[in-house]
């Protein structure tokens, strides 16, 4: 039977009917895809704050949206709105402010930032009080509702739930750099259960601020190849030295195939399956045998009812850290066997940097556009092959035409988080 409404395990087939994306390359699918397939980079010198004295001075910032003053939640909200509005408009679903399903949101953990701490600290006239006592006293004197609304954890989700009228509790989640993949996974699971016909899955991250940059730098996670900025991300190359922090957001409108057909929606692609397995080895490092990653990849392909040979392209996590790229390629080879030598694998991050909580969602949009357009975006700055990766086909430096009907997109994060999602061009 072709185009079945249920999958190999009798579950609802889940399709994508709307997409939206913002990265340092620009706003919207069209601009992003044009630059991504032209091998352009969005990485620049940071202008948001002074980088004097810092080892890393570059990032993929989204500075073209009207967010003033900057704060991570304010920018995360603005980017998420841009992506969600684009996706909902494309899906042409529900009514304005009345999205007929739940929200699953990948968003960075929120906390007060230095400008807010300084503001509170400066407000209090009793300077005999120190540190937090002084800030608490300022809060007792006057309410700071606006600040509270922005810096509670539920803030970004609440804002989106209000604006788009999503149903039920908005779920805000974090699985670190796998968060975007997890948001999509939760949407797929809800539709498969029959809890809902549709779900709004969003990933957003606007955390390029001084403290976050210093923190990641102290973990030795960031590239220090500041000049020229666009050459810093060297995923899968021997000379890679870390990731570049970046901002972005993406949104997928997921629907059951049945519901989308019933309303005559235009289908952009399919989510065939998801896989996940947590790593218990270390807070930031991967099990040396790669088993959690290998099992994640294998579970996703099994869940999709496919075989490795059915996968035409790997949208890699590809963070350009020495550890990730080595372990990711090793795990793909273990899961795919010799077939991996002829399967193209590329890193969108080589151009847009690491969008952290948003990465899995941003890369989902690009995975689906790869199949739609028949064009695989390249890994840029791939000039020095890593002998540890033998015959890897990293789609070096130039986009490539290819007829791809299934893609696996990997997302791995600190805290042992591993998620892989398999996307398809059309229902089986």
């Amino acid at each position: 039977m072709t185009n079945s409404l249920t999958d190999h395990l009798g579950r609802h087939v889940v399709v994508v009917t709307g997409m939206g994306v913002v990265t340092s390359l620009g706003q919207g699918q069209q601009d992003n895809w044009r630059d991504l397939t032209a091998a352009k980079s969005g990485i620049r010198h940071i202008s948001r704050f002074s980088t004097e004295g810092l080892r890393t001075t570059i990032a993929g910032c989204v500075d073209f949206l009207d967010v003033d003053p900057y704060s991570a939640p304010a920018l995360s909200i603005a980017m998420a709105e841009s992506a969600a509005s684009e996706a909902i408009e494309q899906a042409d679903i529900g009514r304005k402010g009345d999205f007929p399903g739940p929200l699953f949101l990948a968003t960075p953990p929120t906390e007060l930032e230095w400008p807010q701490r300084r503001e509170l600290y400066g407000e209090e006239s009793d300077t005999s009080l120190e540190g937090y006592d002084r800030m608490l006293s300022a809060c007792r004197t006057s309410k700071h509702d606006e600040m509270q609304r922005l810096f509670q954890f539920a803030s970004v989700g609440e804002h989106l739930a209000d604006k788009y009228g999503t149903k039920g509790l908005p779920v805000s989640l974090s699985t670190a750099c796998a968060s975007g993949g997890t948001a999509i996974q939760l949407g797929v699971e809800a539709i498969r259960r029959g809890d809902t016909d549709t779900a709004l899955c969003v990933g957003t991250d606007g955390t390029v601020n001084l403290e976050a940059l210093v923190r990641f730098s102290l973990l030795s996670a960031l590239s220090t190849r500041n000049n020229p900025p666009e050459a810093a991300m060297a995923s899968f190359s021997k000379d890679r030295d870390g990731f570049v922090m970046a901002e972005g957001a993406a949104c997928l409108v997921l629907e059951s195939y049945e519901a989308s057909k019933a309303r005559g929606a235009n289908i952009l692609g399919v989510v065939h399956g998801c896989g996940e397995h947590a790593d218990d080895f270390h807070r930031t490092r991967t099990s040396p045998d790669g088993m959690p990653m290998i099992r994640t990849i294998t579970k996703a392909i099994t869940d999709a009812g496919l075989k490795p040979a059915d996968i035409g392209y790997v949208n890699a996590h590809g963070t350009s850290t020495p550890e990730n790229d080595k372990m990711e390629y090793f795990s793909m080879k273990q899961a795919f066997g010799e077939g991996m030598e002829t399967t193209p694998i590329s890193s969108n991050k080589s151009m847009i940097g690491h969008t952290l909580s948003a990465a899995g969602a941003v890369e989902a949009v690009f995975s689906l556009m790869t199949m739609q357009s028949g064009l695989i975006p390249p890994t840029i700055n791939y000039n020095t092959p890593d002998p540890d990766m033998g015959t890897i086909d990293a789609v070096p430096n130039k986009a490539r035409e290819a007829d791809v009907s299934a893609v696996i997109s990997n997302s791995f994060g600190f805290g042992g988080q591993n998620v892989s999602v398999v996307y398809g061009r059309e229902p089986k």
Partner: protein
Amino acid sequence: MKRNDAMSKENADVWITGIGLLSSLGEGADAHSTAISGKSGSTVTPKLDEQNYAPYPVHPLVEVDYASQIKKRGDLRQMEPWQRIGTYTAGLALADAGLAGDLEALDHMDMIVAAGSGERDAAMDQKVLEKTSGDNANKGHSNEILKSELRPTLFLAQLSNLLAGNISIVHKVTGSSRTYMGEELAGLASIENAYNRISSGQSDLMLIGGANNAERKDSLLIFELGQNLWGDEFKSIWERAEQGGGLVQGSVGAFLVLESADHAKARGAKPYAKLSGISSDRCRRDEGQAKDNLDSQFDELSKTMEQGNLGVLSGASGTSQATAEELAFLGGLEGKGFTPLTRAYGSMMGHSFEAQMPAGLALAALALSKGQYIEPLDSSGVEASTDKAPEQIMVTSVGHWRGEGLALLTSLDSKEAK
């Protein structure tokens, strides 16, 4: 989103088979069941720290020997207190369910942690504020100051998902790992998701829960931005609600093992209670909206309830509007044929945000399995005493700011539990 037993006959039953609790009242299921089963007329005396965070009282954590659950000193060193509380309590829940060290089960166990922000180093923040504010406000230096001050702090202890990460490392829970954020509604949403996954057959074994460290000024600050804290002599939830409202934080760790009945039976696990239904929603908190949400959720959930006595473990925080609307909702239950036996457990443990609803479920499950109910926790008149322990308990979650939800637990008679 709503799902309950009435939806489909094919749904799997969801049992609570493990409880981990840690608070100012003590450690473990037994300590808490002793605390909540005071003899008639006696009340639980809350443990308080009224000095260190004045004017804010907090319920401080009981003294804990972390090494009994977190054996490697290196692991312990990588965690700030909230992660220690959570990792320790998760270990208690796994041990209580008979799953500690059962690598085969833990390998397919699914985990959802409801987490807040990791804690900051208050001394470091103070130093940076002093060096970069007022007369010292010289932006050119702030990079150097931050770089040197941040160096020894634990960034990884501040990432929300690293509580789950630590549970994977220390206890080997690896089937899946997700972290929900967003104060009370994160706890509510995680339980609802676990219930939905187990009842639909997507999972058969889950660990859910959260942790709150009340003894930190950076967390007090977040909630005092909107003047949500009670900054006066300690009073119970309902008394505070009458006097302007305010919440008192408590250090709490609460984890539960949820399991499909078939999975529990196959391994001979003993259930505390059955999670029979759960519902949730949100609103903007215009006047009356939270009460309306609770009313319509109750009408759906009560379809499977027996009229009469209904235990109600209220997760109320004590903030004025949320608590008043919950009281109004509870006041309407008589008219629907139910006699609510209400206990605001925050009056004895404090408010723990993400951990609040998991803690309520843990207390409800304990009460049902022991056949003992909590004595009234104050003399406001809201909490009626009873001679007969209820066989069904509803746990409420009305977030201090957002999110409303109800969960229903029912006792399992010995026949069902076999």
